């Protein structure tokens, strides 16, 4: 073609790229994502290896854990992060509490995300009376105070870690469902979805192959945001006596047990708070990087 008008024929002769290959490799190449991964790994290791990492029992109230006046000890050589009001080692409690908080933050949050996505996608794609009914139910859940609902549920069921996780999932899916619904309904109006229908694609195929991948960024963002929300909701429930039962430690209940002494013993709130923050931030960093890596349009042309 000698036409001076640029032909719309192949301009790039470059080798095809395998995008899925090495999501992990590309993840660890990003410094921020790597920081996130390291934090998650540390928390995970701490939770699993807790009994071997510390010489104390998380629930043991030690005589030397309190001053003579009965006040908790600030960080020192034998209690690295200090002790709590009952003379228990804070580091030990945070390490054991990581088990609870990880289960809540990952399992409860994951289940909430799953329910929210299912409800949102179904309502957004099928609309009609199914969509209407699902969304009205969602609105109802939204209008109902989540804490009150959680209290009711927890009161009826015997509180245990797993029950608490389920209760949290059951009150936390609502916002996700709303957001996913809105996005799905605007996605299903897009022309490429019409194009899929004309080639005879079935509804499950459209939903799983074409709509879900577009929802991933939203799901990831809500998933990482949800971790801190759920961890704190667990803490609230513990505080009200319907969460994880004392003396079992969780990051949330450590904060709540000690918050009234914040001024006298700030480390009691600071360390578990920092742990929640670091975990949420870590998941956020990973989520952010994943979102970019999984989006083919973010890759440059060159």
């Amino acid at each position, binding site marked *: 073609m000698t*036409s*001076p*008008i640029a*032909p*719309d*024929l*192949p*301009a*790039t*002769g470059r*080798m*095809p*790229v*395998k*995008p899925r290959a090495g999501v992990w490799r590309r993840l660890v190449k990003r410094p921020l994502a790597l920081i996130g991964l390291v934090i998650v790994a540390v928390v995970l290791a701490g939770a699993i290896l807790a009994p071997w990492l510390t010489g104390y029992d998380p629930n043991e109230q030690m005589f030397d854990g309190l001053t003579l006046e009965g006040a908790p000890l600030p960080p020192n050589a034998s209690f690295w992060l200090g002790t709590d009001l009952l003379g228990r080692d804070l580091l030990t409690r945070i390490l054991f509490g990581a088990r609870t908080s990880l289960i809540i933050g990952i399992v409860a949050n994951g289940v909430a995300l799953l329910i929210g996505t299912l409800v949102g996608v179904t309502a957004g794609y099928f609309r009609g009376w199914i969509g209407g009914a699902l969304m009205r139910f969602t609105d109802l859940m939204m209008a109902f105070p989540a804490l009150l609902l959680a209290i009711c549920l927890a009161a009826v069921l015997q509180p245990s870690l797993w029950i608490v996780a389920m209760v949290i999932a059951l009150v936390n899916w609502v916002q996700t469902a709303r957001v996913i619904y809105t996005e799905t309904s605007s996605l299903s109006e*897009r*022309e*490429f979805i*019409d*194009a*899929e*229908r*004309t*080639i*005879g*694609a*079935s509804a499950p*195929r459209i939903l799983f*192959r*074409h709509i879900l*991948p*577009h929802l991933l960024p939203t799901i990831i963002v809500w998933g990482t945001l949800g971790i801190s929300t759920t961890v704190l909701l667990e803490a609230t429930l513990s505080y009200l006596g319907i969460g994880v039962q004392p003396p079992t430690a969780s990051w949330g209940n450590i904060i709540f047990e000690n918050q009234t002494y914040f001024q006298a013993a700030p480390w009691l709130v600071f360390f578990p708070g920092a742990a929640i923050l670091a975990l949420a931030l870590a998941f956020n960093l990973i989520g952010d990087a994943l979102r970019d890596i999984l*989006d*083919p*349009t973010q*890759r*440059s*042309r*060159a």
Partner: protein
Amino acid sequence: MSKGATSKRTGAAAPAVAVTAGPVLEIAGLTVSVRGEDGERPVVSGLSFSIARGETLCIAGESGSGKSMTALAIMQLLPQPAARIESGTIRLRDMDRREIDLALLDERQMRHIRGDRIAMIFQEPMTSLNPVLSIGRQLVESIEAHTGLSRAEARRRIIEALKAVRIPEAESRLKQFPHELSGGMRQRVMIAMALALKPDVLIADEPTTALDVTVQGEVLELLRDLQREHGTSVILITHDMGVVAEMADRVVIMRHGRMVEQGTAGDIFARPQADYTRELLAAVPRIGTGLGRQKSAEQKSVEAELPGSVAVVNDLHVHFDLRGGFFGQVNRRVHAVEGISFSIAPHETLALVGESGCGKSTTAKALAGLVPYHGDIVIGGRNLAGLGRDQRKAVRRDVQMIFQDPYASLDPRMRVGDLVAEPLLIHGIASKEERSQLVAALFERVGLSADQMELYPHEFSGGQRQRICIARALALRPKLIIADESVSALDVSVQARVLDLLKELQREFGIAYLFISHDMAVVENISDRVAVMYLGQIVEMGTRDQVFSNPRHPYTKRLIEAVPVPDPARRRPRFARLDQEIPSPTRKIGEEPPKLALRDVGNGHLVAVS
């Protein structure tokens, strides 16, 4: 400087009627660059041109030529912070020959220039008006921002401006909101807003691209009249050489950010110097040159009614119910398609033409199974209405669709190879390896290379993407392909090549096309038969020659006349204006639209009798 400019305006605003010598705007060595991932890249480089008072300068070029960036640079509205003016001057002269270099002004000073001395109208009038404010409020505000006029005076000025752009019942329009007006009316409001302040220069960026042809004719003529009255200089940016020929005094042709050629309209069209200009002009589809099709096409169309038809549509109705009132009951109904019938034979291209809202796309969607309908659609001898889900899916294989916007109709998160393979996968055709061979062959067939299968849609240009859509539609070896405005979004040169590809494929595979378009020149180029739709009904149908050389229905005549001719020597006489808007297809329940009867005026040329 800008203060002087505004005070000139706030005075009784003496319009510059006389065309004075000397340029009002002079651009020299303008270079605009955009910062991207791979560093700064010039999108406009070394551009110089000037425009005299009262002159119309057309900047023409294909997408990516930098024409819109030039306009934004003049207005200092470049997308921040990515784009910036790297070098060059943009000098604006007022009546007293004082000069301002717009490139040096800051945002505050520039606000006095914008709207007041240089006004701009954009392609999409809906998005350039604020949807939650009434027309009147927006117009009055724009006047108040630049002049010291009282609200009442501003209002009077606005009503005058609305009357000048021939908006009927101007006073009552002020209370209306943008969505209550049609596209053509909205663009007129934009023009009124732009001209109310009597600017020296009006920049119109593709002002009629989003409008129907008949409306386009009116808007262009309006621009011309207003320019004559006020002596405004107009910079018209367009990709449409027909519009250029119709409007331009002088033309600047741009490509890849550089000026290729400039000259008077007559010279550019009659004696183009640059190769690129010649190519561009050659690629423009023209009415009256569609000689590419053989005679045999007409004989085939006679057989169209025979059982050999690929698709027969009989008395097709598509209605959309509008709900309203407290209980959300159906109270109005859009009669999008109102009893149309046609049939398409193998190897045949039936074009469905009409303006926006006439129901042509809805007809396509009904055929493709995307909207519910009443009536009969028979594909390959099987009536879709009586079929179960699986049978319907099988029939679906025979009808494929290519959409208008190749940017929107491919899933951006799938690799193009998978997208083209998907129809085969869904219908369970071929093993995995065979599939990838088939896909590779399809890629080669539509002029892409098999290496590109691993890429994502965003890595292709518009024309390439449309080829991918074509490959996808071809994958199932359909008998009928519905092309819904499939080349409208493409540049003319690309458009010509895609049309050629479609014709080749038709010869090779004997596919029938239902070609939906608003562009009469393209339709004449590709179709065997033409059906003209108006308000959901067919008003005229016949072979291409019957419809184009002997249009019988007044609406068909209007459509053909409205197409701008890409030849400044053949500028149309004054365009016959439609005094009222095209009526709405929305009606109250129980109120049925009148049914048009088609009469044969000879050799199967059907015309509606009213």
